């Protein structure tokens, strides 16, 4: 597809369950970002990849959160032992070059932890 694709669109997890969220960036885009958006808030930065290198993971809220982009294309955000406070929309964005200008966002994955 032409845009950033995220799957699943919706995920309901029981507390304590592990989840994996997938992001397919636009082909050829070097930069890939993950953001977390809680209800009524703006997106908050989680982590950044330049190709396969994870250059910044300072926004990951705990060591239960892990992201990878092994071949510099598809990325997966994994959350272990999910907690209720993890409920949010997880947004992936990609951009052609390093800078943030005109980063293209996917539709997001809405995670609900019950």
């Amino acid at each position, binding site marked *: 597809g032409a845009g950033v694709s995220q799957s699943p669109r919706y995920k309901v997890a029981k507390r304590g369950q592990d989840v994996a969220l997938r992001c397919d960036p636009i082909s050829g885009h070097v930069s890939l970002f993950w953001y977390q958006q809680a209800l009524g808030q*703006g997106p908050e930065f989680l982590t950044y990849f*330049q190709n396969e290198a994870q250059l910044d993971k300072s926004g990951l809220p705990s060591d239960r959160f892990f992201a990878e982009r092994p071949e510099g294309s598809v990325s997966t955000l994994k959350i272990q032992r999910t907690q209720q406070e993890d409920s949010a929309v997880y947004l992936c964005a990609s951009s052609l070059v*390093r800078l943030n200008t*005109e980063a293209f966002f996917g*539709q997001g994955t809405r995670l609900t932890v019950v």
Partner: protein
Amino acid sequence: DQQVKQNSPSLSVQEGRISILNCDYTNSMFDYFLWYKKYPAEGPTFLISISSIKDKNEDGRFTVFLNKSAKHLSLHIVPSQPGDSAVYFCAAGGAGAGSYQLTFGKGTKLSVIP
């Protein structure tokens, strides 16, 4: 501590009139600012950006103004159209090592009344 603030959660404007959305920031290291538009159940869409070396950037009906001394920027939409009804996020990026991380405001919901 919120570094990017959008103090108006919502704004209603008549079709054809001007919409003005405001954003304040506290971190003087920010050197790049963006506005994103978000429809329900979709990811944010890039709208317009401005570098800190400029005080105005215009793209069609959209103009962003930057006042660095006041740490304030605004988005003007003229004329407003019903299709502009969405949530608008202000975002800022800094220079240096963290330049790929965007900091978002909480958003302003714009309603354009036909």
